[in-house]
């Protein structure tokens, strides 16, 4: 049984979980859609954190993988008329896994900044393909007219039920990612981040560990891409470019890299800010984002989550 101490420790998580489950039916549709978006980007950011925060691989092309998942599913629906979610979604995710496996082979030849530059280029490759291959992707206008997924039985999604669908999928994925970070494999990734030389000398095939992590990360980015496609109804090349990758990376850094849940907090903070600030001054959003990033790096070292944890620990011990 949980004792009082443990209850206090987990209280914030329980409150958050209850909020996500109970409150949405009473929310305005705009807020509901904001919440759905937060969940989807939380998954994308957490998938990046597995390689960025845990393995220390600075991937700068994560939105590209997200785009592969979204575009593959979208093209199957629009160009090939495969409307069943049970076919189009797994196909999109599988394609993301395949592309990750190829990108990983190329990118893992480099380390640190070189890895970053290669993933940057590979991400842009997805972006340019989406931009140029008009017949399939719709070019700069994007692939539009995608509806909520068709699950087969006579059930059609509303924005509320799609929110719950997203919540369940993201929760399952987040739980699997959590298990991975707590496993021997997840700890090995941290070891590689801290000292790859030492890990090799302890008997680890570090390349293989990094490669597997890169593919797993791609898989969850693909899931996020498919969720986003059906949520947004449209996928554009700009969803897959380096600016989008940069935002995901900022979510990880701002929330606290190497903490998994921090990435979700980063998603909540940046998605909310983007939403509210662009209502008032759309053109100044990047400027404000930059200022926030600098402030967090300077004043909240390690990101928001580690600081929140410290604060909660103090409060709960009073």
């Amino acid at each position, binding site marked *: 049984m949980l004792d009082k101490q443990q209850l206090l420790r987990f209280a914030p998580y329980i409150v958050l979980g209850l909020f996500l489950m109970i409150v949405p039916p009473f929310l305005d549709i705009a807020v509901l859609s904001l919440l759905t978006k937060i969940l989807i980007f939380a998954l994308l950011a957490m998938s990046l954190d597995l390689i960025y925060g845990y393995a220390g691989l600075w991937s700068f092309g994560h939105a590209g993988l997200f785009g592969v998942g979204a575009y593959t599913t979208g093209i199957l629906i629009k160009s090939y008329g495969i409307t069943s979610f049970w076919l189009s979604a797994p196909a999109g995710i599988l394609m993301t896994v395949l592309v990750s496996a190829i990108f990983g082979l190329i990118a893992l030849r480099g380390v640190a900044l070189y890895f970053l530059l290669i993933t940057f280029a590979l991400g842009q490759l997805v972006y340019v393909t989406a931009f140029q291959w008009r017949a399939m992707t719709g070019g700069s206008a994007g692939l539009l007219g995608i509806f909520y997924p068709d699950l087969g039985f006579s059930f059609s999604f509303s924005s509320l039920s799609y929110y719950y669908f997203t919540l369940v999928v993201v929760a399952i994925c987040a739980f699997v990612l959590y298990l991975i970070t707590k*496993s021997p494999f997840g*700890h090995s990734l*941290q070891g590689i981040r*801290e000292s790859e030389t030492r890990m090799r*000398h*302890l008997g680890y095939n570090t390349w293989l560990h990094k490669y597997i992590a890169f593919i797993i990360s791609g898989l969850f980015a693909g899931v996020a891409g498919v969720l986003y496609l059906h949520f947004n109804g449209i996928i554009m090349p700009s969803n897959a470019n380096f600016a989008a990758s940069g935002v995901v990376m900022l979510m990880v850094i701002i929330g606290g890299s190497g903490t998994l849940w921090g990435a979700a907090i980063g998603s909540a903070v940046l998605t909310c800010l983007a939403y509210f600030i662009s209502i008032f001054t759309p053109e100044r959003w990047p400027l404000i984002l930059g200022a926030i990033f600098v402030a967090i790096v300077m004043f909240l070292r390690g990101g928001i989550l580690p600081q929140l944890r410290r604060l909660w620990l103090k409060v709960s011990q009073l």
Partner: protein
Amino acid sequence: MSVLEVENVSQSFGGLKVLENVSFRMEAGERVALIGPNGAGKTTLLNVLSGHLPCRSGRIHLLGQEVTHMPTYGRISLGLARSFQINTLFPNLSLLTNVVLAVQGTKPARFQMLRSITAYGDNFARAKELLELVGLWEKRDDLITALSHGQQRHMEILLALASKPKLLMLDEPSAGLSTSETTGFIDMMRGLVGGTTLFFCAHDMDVVFALAERVMVLYYGGIIAQGTPEEIQNNPKVREIYLGTQAENA
């Protein structure tokens, strides 16, 4: 069967020849020290033997198997382990995690993704045993960065010992320790190493005499002398390298 057999290993960085036709062998249970002045190629030799640097010419056999071009992790799974002259630990992980990572390195569990690391009780038991050997069990939840340099040197050797190696290679185990620290360190080393086949390089002659049965002298990339510690101590050529000739000293 020899534990280690090195035949004509050479290595150069650009035009600089660092190792030239190094050959030697080691039998099970032996404790061999590698000495030589700065820049003699001691660490380079260790790096080639552990696979950290590619071996460009010559052949290396480990426990009867050719490992000349085998990646590091393969040599480790055969039974090799090494430590580093410059602390190469996992600074932002706890002591316990450091050791557990070392213990699971040669086990299939290292690829397990969906079970918690704490489910592997025997890895933790082994880690506890090791940390208790150097008196750091109480500090198991501290980060490496919280340890003194001397304690980090202990961890350096502990990580190498975790896999119960058949050949243990230590690079300057007492690097950076003061004279008074070294005395305690030597006693601890004796206990830790036990009957393990040991190959180590060192500057500190106290460490060499305390631990080695056989000493090899590396000078400008070649082994110029080997023998018992006493023989090496009285070898005129070695004395010349370390102390200089009379003409130079004059």
